[in-house]
């Protein structure tokens, strides 16, 4: 059974929440029969995957679970990745045509409805704009672009063509996030007046990506596609002109959550960061950022930190703190938590549990006839009662394809994503400028 508390948007975003039957419906095979039709249609949407790097691999695992869509072409400039992807798909009985260049792909693939783009950030705007203008719907990974102008051009192309542009902030389709935002934060006012937020993504020191020597791309090819050398190609996230550094790569997800959950964009940002550890990168390897959000009840400050030299502090999460309670969210369900202040008596845990908004963590009362006397018991603990067991990106991709069919509204359209994109770029600016930067409500709009 679908949790009756999930509204239509939450349900469409997930199609697999709190119930094995529904999960199986979403993930079951198609009885071994490939769709008879070869023409792209609303029943079978033909799409191409452009970029089969680290993120492309993650997306593919979700894409292969989605019914009613067919991957027909794969594009990557690097032969190693291209062949790896084709071989992998072949093992699964999914033959695709492969391309080095996305423009060749567009020229030859005449039966596409959509493209999923998972390339380095600096490629996003030209690829997205070209695909939209070719009449295709586009799912583009975050960040939108390595420049604000690039991101803005994507929104303009989306509006001009009338095609769909979904940006890959996949938490916006995560049923746990949707449920908690709609039910606990908005409806139950669980946090009361929000006064602060905190988020982080800390990662341990990691070797830069390498490459098998025999698959090194020729210098001419690297230059043709905008890279100085193989190291830069493999580690584009950390280079200016290609990516946006950790604040963009990791922080963009969570700073987007600030904007989404607080319902406004910040009025200012201050930040500090530096290139203090890695000596062969461009972007800072650490940053600490404070935004001021002008909420209706007063200012809330949101602190964000990203470290690429330590996994300390509990990984990656977003916390919203208010006078009545705190909600800690993460894509990792084990990190999610809810806390209630002692003063928050207007709505009790029992009320919230009765409505199905929270659930008491399982207690070990196997035998009601017995009781054990020991140290003072801790208060009952509660948790968010929504679990889903799809790969994290799958609901967001499903939302994209459902929007193409006209059965859903995009959860993260390009224009909405632009506001977060702008906010993130301003954090990088604040790090460089070492000063407070004001942000107006107007400038965050594309």
């Amino acid at each position, binding site marked *: 059974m679908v949790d009756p508390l999930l509204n239509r948007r939450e349900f469409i975003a997930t199609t697999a929440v709190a119930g*094995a039957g529904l999960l199986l419906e979403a993930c*079951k095979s198609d009885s071994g029969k490939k769709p008879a039709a070869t023409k792209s249609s609303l029943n079978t949407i033909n799409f191409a995957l452009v970029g089969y790097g*680290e993120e492309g691999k993650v997306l593919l695992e979700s894409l*292969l679970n989605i019914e009613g869509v067919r991957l027909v072409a794969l594009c990557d400039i690097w032969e190693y990745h291209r062949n790896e992807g084709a071989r992998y798909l072949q093992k699964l009985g999914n033959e695709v045509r492969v391309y080095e260049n996305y423009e060749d792909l567009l020229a030859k693939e005449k039966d596409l409805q959509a493209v999923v783009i998972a390339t380095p950030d600096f490629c996003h705007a030209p690829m997205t704009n070209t695909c939209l203008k070719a009449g295709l719907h586009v799912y583009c990974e975050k960040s939108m672009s390595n420049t604000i102008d690039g991101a803005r051009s994507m929104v303009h192309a989306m509006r001009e063509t009338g095609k769909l542009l979904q940006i890959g902030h996949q938490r916006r389709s995560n049923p746990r996030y949707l449920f908690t935002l709609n039910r606990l934060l908005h409806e139950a006012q669980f946090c009361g007046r929000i006064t602060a937020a905190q988020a982080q993504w800390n990662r341990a020191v990691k070797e830069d990506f390498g490459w098998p020597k025999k698959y090194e791309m020729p210098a001419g090819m690297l230059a043709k596609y905008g890279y100085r050398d193989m190291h830069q190609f493999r580690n584009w996230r950390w280079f200016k002109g290609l990516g946006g550094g950790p604040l963009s790569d990791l922080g963009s997800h969570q700073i987007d959550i600030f904007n989404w959950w607080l319902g406004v964009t910040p009025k200012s940002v201050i930040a500090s960061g530096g290139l203090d550890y890695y000596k062969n990168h461009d972007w800072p390897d650490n940053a600490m950022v404070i935004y001021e959000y002008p909420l209706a009840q007063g200012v809330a400050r949101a602190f964000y930190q990203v470290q690429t030299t330590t996994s300390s502090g509990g990984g990656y999460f977003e916390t919203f703190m208010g006078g009545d309670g705190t909600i800690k969210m993460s894509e990792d369900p084990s990190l999610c938590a809810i806390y209630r202040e002692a003063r928050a008596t207007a709505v009790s845990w029992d009320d919230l549990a009765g409505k199905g908004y929270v659930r008491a963590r399982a207690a070990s009362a196997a035998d009601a006839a017995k009781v054990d006397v020991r140290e003072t018991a801790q208060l009952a603990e509660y948790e968010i009662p929504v679990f889903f067991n799809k790969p994290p990106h799958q609901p967001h991709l499903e939302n994209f394809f459902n929007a193409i069919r006209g059965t859903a509204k995009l959860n993260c359209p390009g224009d909405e994503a632009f506001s977060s994109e702008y906010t993130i770029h301003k954090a990088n600016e604040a790090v460089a400028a070492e000063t407070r930067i004001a942000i107006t409500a107007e400038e965050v709009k594309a």
Partner: protein
Amino acid sequence: MPDIHQFNHHAMATYFEVRITGQEQTYAAQAAQAALDLLDRLESQLSRFRPNSAIAQLGGLAPGEKICLNEPAFACLEIAKKMELATRNAFSITAAALQTQSCLPQWSLLHGESSIRCESGRLEFDLGAIGKGFALDRMAALLRNWDCPAFLLVAGGSSILAGDAPEDAAGWSCGLGDDDATQRISLSHASLSGSGLAVKGSHILDPHTGQPALQQNRTWALADTAAESDALSTACMVLSEPEIKEVLTQDQSWLIFIESDGAAQPMGSRALPLQA
């Protein structure tokens, strides 16, 4: 002795090591990182503790229902099925199900559509005794693709997979037993896995009874792949010596050691590796 570059990582609730020789440090580090990244991806796809892994989803299948699997999960289950058949279910990835069900659940792989179908019972899979080996095999393929053929991969100390031997050595020196074991073999192009009661107690369940396996104190299995050696050493913990001999008739590339009188006694027709 040539330089051996060693890299450590935590995954699958244990530690992994990648040792590479014959390469300069930076290249070895990058290759090892790529292998460990692959390990993390495999864990997310194979672990029953990850709610969105394919394996974790199988418990919800009712008899007659099927579900598509990703490529690594399907490939790992293919090997698991082969080893269940080869060992007459002395190895079973569903052994723990006997703690909650009266008999082992039954399942089939549907080739051509990369699916698994539940035939009976509730599929409670634990790939612990084969998943680590499977991961080592995939990591080894990656390292060979990086032209790093001289490697030793270690999963939790209970499974190792050796590539080419280090320069000027007959193989990687592997002890059968506790730290600095005196009984050592030189290993290359093979995998060695060990199972036993000494470290974790009676943690291996006999899939035929659901009770702790007590036939052997310690077993080791040598095979070409780590997935097979992992499964074999586990199976041998619940098999008697005659049963082990019967299993070994099916594959000449398998070699078993069982602990007897404090020493590891070999069984099988595969040539014994050189002593290290």
